């Protein structure tokens, strides 16, 4: 029996962002952009969607004079990610 995959995570870029954040305490926007290879605009939109779903927290701060956006996964995000991986197993296994 196949389980339904969370549509919010079943998008390549959003899934990539969540996969990075699951392994770290927090990561900044520049790092996420480099790791995913996404454009700044696209990444920004996807981060916003994840934030609105409560999966990640976004903190806008300054590093010296440069603006800096730091993302970290919430407990809700961690649960959603775990459920997504579990559901994936039902397709692959």
């Amino acid at each position, binding site marked *: 029996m196949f389980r339904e*995959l969370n549509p919010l995570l079943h998008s*390549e*870029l959003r*899934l990539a962002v969540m996969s*990075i954040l699951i392994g*770290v*305490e927090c990561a900044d926007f520049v790092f996420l952009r480099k790791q*995913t*290879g996404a454009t700044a605009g696209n990444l920004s939109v996807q981060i916003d969607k994840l934030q609105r779903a409560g999966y990640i927290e976004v903190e806008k701060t300054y590093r010296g004079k440069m603006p*800096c956006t730091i993302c970290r996964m919430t407990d809700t995000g961690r649960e959603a990610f775990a459920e997504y991986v579990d559901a994936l197993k039902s397709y692959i296994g």
Partner: protein
Amino acid sequence: MNEMKNSAPSTNEPSDERRSLEIISQMIADTSRKIEQNSSLYFLAWGYTTVLVSIFEYFVWVADLNKSWLWAWWLIPVIGGCATLILNRRERKVGAHPKSYVDRSVSAVWTVLGLSWWIAFVVFFGNASAFYFLIAYTMGIGTTISGAICRQRLLTICGAMSILLSVVFPLKRWAMINYTITEPAVIYADILIFAAIFVVMMIVPGHIYLNRAKKH
């Protein structure tokens, strides 16, 4: 990773199931590799500084140079500290280093060890051999713990080897007490043993991790 960048995660398209798993494993692996690459630079900076300064100090003793050169030991914390600050700043600038739980644990281990060395420095002031042993031994412990936390077998092995190698200091001390040794090259060999331990503990794993990260 390049292949990955060119093809997919940057799209908003729904992914198929296998592709999803591929993205998850690839992103997790790339992130840990990035962390590995950054850590290796700290290892190399501290490792090379310690080894080069130690070799210099060995020649100061063997060649019986002016003992004011012994102040050069302080170059280790000065150069190592500056290198750490530069690497930290560089990482912050390019956003290259995500903050991980592992980082925090490893950083706590080294902070505690670093503080304990200042106490050891005061306690063992004037007893260089004991100080070399203590530094090499505790650094070996720190490296082994770091390797265990990061699940890096190489680092754990190098740390454990350093702990074992540090036993050479009391053995040499025992030999010095029981045999008449007057050769300065042997008397001051503690410093070279100290340098060799740092090669095993920091330079070897540093280069291996850096090369591994570059290959990917």
